[in-house]
């Protein structure tokens, strides 16, 4: 049947509430008698915790309670491991997760030490200064390489070293490939830390009703169902007693999927005190206490023939996980897999060591390790192109997997525990489209030489990537046609701005023939839908979208069957549209869906055996593996040789995420991803000193890009549908952010070609470019 809503840039259902300031975010929750929490966080990055004296704090007027690890007793256990390591041979993994409150050792600056509960947040923060912490500072392991030295301070003393994990994955025989190669390009790459810095900080509000024995929790989480399950388990309640609501969330980007200490402590305090309790993180806490990402050091090499054909890649890298590793190996495995990109790589050796350091915990942040892989591969290709005298577009084209090569099995294991198989793809046309849109030939051939002759430093970058998206395990949806004619869709994936209230309604609208604004999506509330994992890894549209579709198909069938009985017409002669089901060609002979729903739920008579009341269906979708999206980004920028500031003049993205549900929302995701990528490449940098102190813990020092830093992004789409799901969709949430660092490095190198720089590190900054240029001048 023709799609009426799928593929259309339909305006979002959720916007009016958000625009009026009427949308509920966690800090907007007010309960009568509510108490407020402030968390005492460690100032030391590594110390022995000898004791905490909170007696003065407890005596402050307005303070209701102060809790330390001692008060938690046996409940103070290491948190859950959110993702177990995948089944890879010879894998080494040491699970170390954070306790709710530190007991005898502090492992990173910002680790939670105590909780103050008071009548107001102001009083609670005052009371923080009354608490005396007796700690004996220890030497600190900050640098990921130094942390592996034999005499380095050990973050977890029960382990022989700071090695948290070690994984080797192989395909083919790299050593043999290297010996056959005409050219081997080998370099060291460094990709440093950044933070998601969503505009809304984290927060938890908990309300325990002692009479009905029910716990209600509002939480800024991307995964309300797993949080509900964990809370029920830890607090000794049944899952049906716990309701976790993720209302409107002001940006997720990854770090809001965790089981943070506060997510347990606040409900626990609420149950103990019998009063509602609220904790809202402030921006400084966010810099220490919310997870970060990115620190990796790579030694990588690319073996090629003289014609620029890749024979093999070898990549040995270190991944900095911070003080604990609750998210398993997701990030470094993504790095391993995404490095392969859209290229035909017959031989691959990849080895990583995950290292504990005395810094904030690392868990996925938009891209989740993919950008490191793309950075390494794209830089190696650029360096190889230079060495071989090949055009950088040409070397990529020569190595692309051809459209006949799918499904393509790369053999190594991906984050969804299945072998990395690219389901579909058509890469060369994307590259062609981008070169055309950015005017590659014309720029490189005419414009750039002309501008260079005028003394201007302009450069062009163009990079390619593949993104594994839409992984399982599954998601579900329940669709109900209500007597009013409204259609209710309940799902388990929370929303943080991706337009779920609209996108999923579009999928349902096509099947049921109801306008999108008559479809109410309810999501992020564990009471409404009981099964699911959450919003992450660019999987919402793929997994939850297809679950919606599956449920909508069943409801459609029910509608047709019942209407066929009611109207005494064959099902094939019926059509759905405008909220009605009617005879094709005779629209006045029909019935409103709301009226049909009433008929499906009789007050008397019997429901036929084998049928269910109402017009409702629940379906689940679990893809056998992830769908592979791909794309190419290109940009033209100019570097001011005196200030080393960068002006991006053009930015082009062509992305292939299969069929597109709502192009307006998709483009928004691209724009946002690119902006975060630009921030990550040039403006944002988390600086830790040798003692593990974060020196950039405010927006004064950690610079988020503003409207004058992010260019217009020109987007175009290609649709190579995925064979792995009925809708043919692939994920797109992270794509904008993934290749930007590699793109920046290439474009800046090109702009500053006069100095023949080799940029193998990210983030860059005006200071760093200045240093690099000075070094190049001295070397010349």
């Amino acid at each position: 049947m023709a799609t009426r809503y799928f593929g259309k840039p339909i305006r979002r259902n959720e916007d009016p509430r958000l625009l009026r300031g009427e949308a509920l975010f966690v800090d907007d929750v007010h309960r009568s008698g509510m108490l407020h929490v402030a968390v005492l966080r460690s100032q030391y990055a590594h110390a022995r915790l000898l004791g905490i004296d909170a007696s003065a704090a407890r005596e402050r007027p307005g303070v209701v309670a102060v809790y330390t690890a001692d008060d938690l007793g046996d409940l103070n256990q290491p948190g859950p491991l959110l993702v177990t390591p995948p089944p890879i041979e010879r894998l080494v993994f040491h699970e170390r997760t954070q306790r709710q409150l530190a007991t005898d050792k502090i492992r990173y600056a910002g680790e939670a030490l105590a909780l103050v509960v008071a009548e107001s947040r102001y009083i609670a923060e005052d009371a923080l200064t009354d608490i005396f912490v007796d700690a004996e500072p220890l030497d600190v392991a900050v640098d990921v390489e130094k942390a592996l030295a034999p005499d380095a301070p050990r973050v977890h003393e029960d382990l022989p070293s700071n090695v948290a994990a070690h994984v080797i994955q192989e395909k083919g025989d790299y050593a043999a490939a290297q010996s056959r190669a005409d050219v081997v390009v080998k370099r060291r790459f460094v990709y440093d830390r950044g933070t998601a810095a969503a505009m809304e900080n984290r927060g938890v509000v908990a309300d325990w009703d002692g009479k009905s024995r029910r716990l209600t929790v509002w939480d800024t989480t991307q995964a309300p169902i797993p949080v509900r399950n964990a809370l029920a388990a830890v607090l000794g309640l049944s899952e049906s007693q716990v309701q976790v609501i993720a209302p409107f969330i002001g940006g997720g980007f990854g770090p809001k999927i965790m089981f943070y200490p506060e997510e347990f402590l606040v409900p626990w305090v609420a149950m103990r005190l019998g009063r509602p309790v609220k904790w809202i993180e402030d921006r400084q806490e966010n810099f220490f206490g919310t997870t970060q990402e990115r620190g990796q050091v790579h030694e990588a090499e690319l073996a090629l023939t003289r014609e620029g054909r890749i024979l093999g890649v070898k990549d040995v890298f270190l991944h900095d996980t911070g003080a604990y590793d609750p998210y398993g190996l997701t990030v470094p495995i993504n790095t391993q897999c995404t490095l392969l990109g859209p290229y035909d790589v017959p031989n691959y050796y990849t080895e990583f060591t995950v290292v504990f350091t005395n810094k904030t915990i690392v868990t996925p942040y938009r891209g989740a390790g993919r950008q490191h892989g793309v950075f390494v591969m794209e830089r190696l290709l650029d360096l190889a192109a230079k060495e071989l005298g090949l055009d950088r577009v040409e070397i990529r084209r020569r190595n692309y997997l051809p459209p006949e090569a799918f499904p393509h099995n790369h053999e190594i294991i991906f984050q969804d525990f299945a072998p990395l198989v690219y389901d579909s793809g058509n890469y060369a046309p994307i590259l062609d489209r981008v070169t055309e849109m950015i005017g590659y030939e014309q720029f490189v051939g005419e414009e750039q030489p002309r501008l260079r002759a005028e003394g201007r430093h302009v450069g062009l970058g163009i990079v390619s990537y593949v993104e594994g998206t839409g992984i399982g395990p599954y998601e579900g949806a329940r669709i109900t046609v209500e007597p009013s004619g409204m259609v209710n869709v309940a799902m388990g994936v929370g929303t943080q701005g991706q337009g779920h209230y609209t996108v999923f309604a579009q999928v349902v609208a096509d099947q049921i023939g109801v306008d999108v604004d008559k479809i109410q999506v309810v999501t992020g509330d564990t009471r409404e839908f009981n099964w699911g994992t959450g919003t992450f890894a660019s999987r919402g549209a793929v997994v939850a979208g297809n679950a919606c579709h599956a449920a909508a198909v069943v409801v459609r069938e029910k509608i047709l069957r019942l209407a066929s009985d009611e109207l005494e017409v064959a099902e094939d002669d019926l059509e759905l549209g405008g909220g009605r089901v009617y005879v094709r060609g005779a629209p006045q002979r029909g019935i409103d869906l709301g009226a049909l729903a009433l008929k499906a739920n009789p007050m008397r008579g019997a429901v036929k055996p084998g049928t269910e009341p109402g017009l409702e269906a629940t379906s689940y979708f679990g893809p056998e593996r992830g769908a592979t999206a791909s794309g190419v980004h290109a940009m033209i920028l100019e570097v001011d040789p005196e200030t080393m500031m960068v002006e991006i003049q053009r930015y082009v993205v062509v992305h292939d995420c299969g069929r597109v549900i709502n192009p307006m929302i998709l483009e928004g995701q691209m724009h946002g991803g690119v902006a975060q990528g630009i921030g990550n490449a040039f403006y944002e940098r988390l600086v830790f000193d040798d003692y593990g102190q974060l020196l950039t813990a405010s927006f004064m020092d950690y610079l988020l890009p503003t409207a004058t830093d992010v260019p217009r992004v020109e987007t175009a789409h290609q649709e190579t549908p995925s064979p792995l799901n009925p809708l043919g969709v692939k994920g797109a949430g992270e794509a904008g952010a993934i290749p930007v660092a590699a793109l920046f490095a290439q474009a800046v190198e090109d702009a500053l070609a006069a100095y023949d720089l080799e940029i193998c590190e990210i983030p860059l900054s005006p200071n760093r470019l200045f240093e690099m240029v000075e070094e190049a001048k001295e070397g010349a």
Partner: protein
Amino acid sequence: MQLNGEYTFNGPREAVWELLHDPEVLKAALPGARQLEKTGEDEYKAQLQVRVGPVNGVFATKIALTDKTPPERYTMLVDSKGQTGFGKGSALVTLIEQDAATTLMTYEATLQVGGRIASVGQRMLDTVSKSLTRQSLEAMNNALEARLALEPDAEPAEAYTAPTQADFAREVAKDVAAETVKSRGFVVGLVIVAIIAVVVAVLLMI
């Protein structure tokens, strides 16, 4: 952070050595020292109330003097903890006799600063530390001169009045402004100082 420098005292080396080991003088010369008590041989404990623009708070401080080679050199160990941060470090202090009435003191200090001050007050730290150090040394030099000018049987402590917290604060503000102005020009310098001071003050309050 590294804090290196030198200072010329107007007195003979032995007198300077004694001065630097006199708890009453130390108390007067350290900014906002509320109590300074001796807890052992060459070990002291103090409460330093620092209120200098945005850097604010009471710091429980332990000081120990070790590796003494009188009257030439010693090492001072400092361990300071407060609500807005902590500081820990050591300073190697050397006294060099220039002539009968002047002594050159050189110091090489390594200080680890952490906590809130370090994460949001980086810009201020360097200048503020240098300013506080300079003022302390000046105060000690004034105490030395007062002591030397005394009649032999008078009480040494009377002759000298220590600078107040407000004095310290005022001097630091002047130094900070001067440093920034030197590098940026007058108006821009003052504006930058004012903005940074406001932001850091807000951050340290929350």
